[in-house]
């Protein structure tokens, strides 16, 4: 399912109106229109704009504060990168923070994807009393801002003596209303009823049907949800900084404690940010392939 995908195909629409005669020939030939030069230029520009902030983080992470303040600002990285990273790691427990963040984000992601898929499946395909009302309730909770729940939540966590423990960050976000709604929408459209009936006639229990039939069909949507959830969990700052301390921080909490002082040490902050971002990039590379594959599969079937 992942073989068809490649970037140029997705952006054909960008260059659509200015198709050159050469591209028309490509169109006649078959499956997918070949990309023209303009497509590549636009794609290249978009990629540049997206990558630049990351690049500049790397540049800034390899300079001293004084060099950064100079005009014009530097554009090439330096050899000081590892010194700065070393300083950042001394200043805050960034190693621990990354491990914590990986644990927290992974737990939240696995929990959210699993629970959302189960609940989404139930809402989309199982007949039970109060289905509609319950779904409305779930969707309704999306309209309640997180900030409203923070104080009661903190009181609860404090009473459980979980402050500064990772479960304080993991447990409240193990399932998300958005995830449930997202999976419901996907499954009610992508999963034919006959498939479930076939599984029932074949003797599968509901749970077995879920594992053997629903999950394989839901995989592309699960990957999208996993990536979104992982990113959100990784970047979450508000609740972790309340529930955790700098002794046992997540990455965002640790970064907040970096480069403090009378003049913020931008270089050290950037160095910390850089290593705090790398794990997310890895996740993106791993899951991104699945997602593009999923999009293509849906398109072909649709």
């Amino acid at each position, binding site marked *: 399912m992942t073989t068809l995908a490649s970037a140029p195909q997705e952006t054909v629409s960008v260059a659509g109106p200015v198709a050159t005669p050469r591209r028309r020939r490509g169109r006649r030939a078959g499956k997918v229109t070949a990309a023209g030069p303009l497509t590549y230029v636009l794609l290249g520009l978009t990629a540049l704009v997206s990558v630049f902030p990351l690049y500049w983080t790397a540049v800034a992470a390899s300079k001293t504060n004084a060099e950064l303040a100079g005009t014009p600002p530097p554009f090439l990285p330096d050899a000081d990168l590892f010194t700065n990273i070393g300083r950042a790691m001394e200043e805050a427990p960034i190693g621990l923070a990354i491990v914590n963040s990986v644990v927290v984000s992974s737990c939240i992601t696995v929990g959210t994807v699993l629970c959302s898929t189960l609940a989404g499946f139930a809402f989309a395909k199982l007949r039970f009393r109060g289905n509609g009302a319950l779904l409305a309730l779930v969707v309704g909770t999306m309209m309640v801002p997180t900030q409203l729940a923070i104080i009661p939540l903190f009181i609860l966590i404090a009473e459980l003596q979980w402050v500064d423990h990772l479960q304080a960050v993991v447990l409240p976000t193990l399932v998300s209303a958005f995830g449930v709604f997202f999976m419901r929408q996907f499954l009610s459209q992508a999963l*034919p009823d*006959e*498939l479930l*009936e*076939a*599984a*029932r*006639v*074949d*003797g*599968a229990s509901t749970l*077995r049907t879920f594992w*053997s*039939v629903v999950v*394989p*069909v839901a995989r592309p949507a699960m990957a999208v949800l996993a990536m979104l959830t992982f990113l959100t969990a990784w970047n979450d700052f508000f609740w972790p900084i309340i529930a955790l301390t700098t002794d046992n921080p997540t990455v965002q909490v640790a970064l907040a404690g970096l480069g403090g002082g009378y003049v913020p040490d931008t270089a050290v902050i950037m160095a910390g940010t850089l290593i705090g971002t790398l794990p997310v990039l890895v996740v993106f590379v791993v899951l991104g392939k699945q997602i593009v594959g999923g999009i293509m599969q849906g398109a072909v*079937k649709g």
Partner: protein
Amino acid sequence: MATVTFDSATRMYPKADRPAVDNLDLEIGDGEFLVLVGPSGCGKSTSLRMLAGLEEIDAGSIRIGDRDVSDAPPKDRDIAMVFQNYALYPHMTVEQNMGFALKIAGVAKDEIGRRVAEAAKILDLEDYLLRRPKALSGGQRQRVAMGRAIVRNPQVFLMDEPLSNLDAKLRVQTRTQIAALQRRLAVTTVYVTHDQVEAMTMGDRVAVLRDGVLQQCDTPGALYERPANTFVAGFIGSPAMNVVTGPAVDGGVRLAGAVLPVPREKLARAAAGTGRVTVGFRPESLETAPPGEGVPVVVNVVEQLGSDAFLYATLGADDDGDVLHTADVVVRTEPRTAAAVGETVHLRVREDCLHVFDPVTQLRVD
């Protein structure tokens, strides 16, 4: 293998104002091939799904063998179903698709392999066992769906329009293959179709449904020879039987000024209430008569099929006061002597080929 019995089985969908299947009584013999046929929306699929356990039964009961399965879940009914769109698991190979039910039932791996291989051989699928459904043609998918049913060796096969997604030629081919396969396996089979040709060629018996109500269940020959009412008469046979109503006169029914002879006893019973009688005659049981005899019709269209010709003609309104509707009549004739458009032909019905119905109840009069 087993018999199947519908005993006043009724299904009323929530919020519907009348049952989708109404008091269905049907006995299906052991090893029999029964076809459920009827127009779209008549409740064929619903009946089948009731038997499969995918649809609740609101009243009455269904038995497989001696066992009342009305409340049993599908897996406890020992049935296998072939769906109209095949419902193959998209992420499983042909082999896994066919073996899924056995795997769930906890059958040993080599036994599964053996049974899948056997079914694949019967269905000519051996070369495709490792492919996914999306890499198969429509006909191959259809065979995989059949294979999935066969490997389970169930007591009853259920098939819901399994051929409707195939092109015409393949449909005819597969039709005979399925019928032959069923005879060979001798598994009780309930087969749903809206195509009366399929029904007539495949079924040991055919049950005709209309608006959720069973109209007649009989062998294809009997349905053709002795339709129980005008609906069955019009539904079975192609082109359909001509059904017209006219006033009863001495010796027959008056149509377009002429008298079509009807046996005295039948005429008397059919016309008892209203003085009218409904008669049916098939296109193939009409022959031309010399002018002055027979019923005159005006030819509108001539369809030459090579082996036959069909005349699409209009039966004129009655001319002396008691005006009845004009009616369209289809006539099969010899292709070489077919009449021309606009011509008037005189028709008579071959002996013993006239069906008589009560114009009010629409039921057959014998």
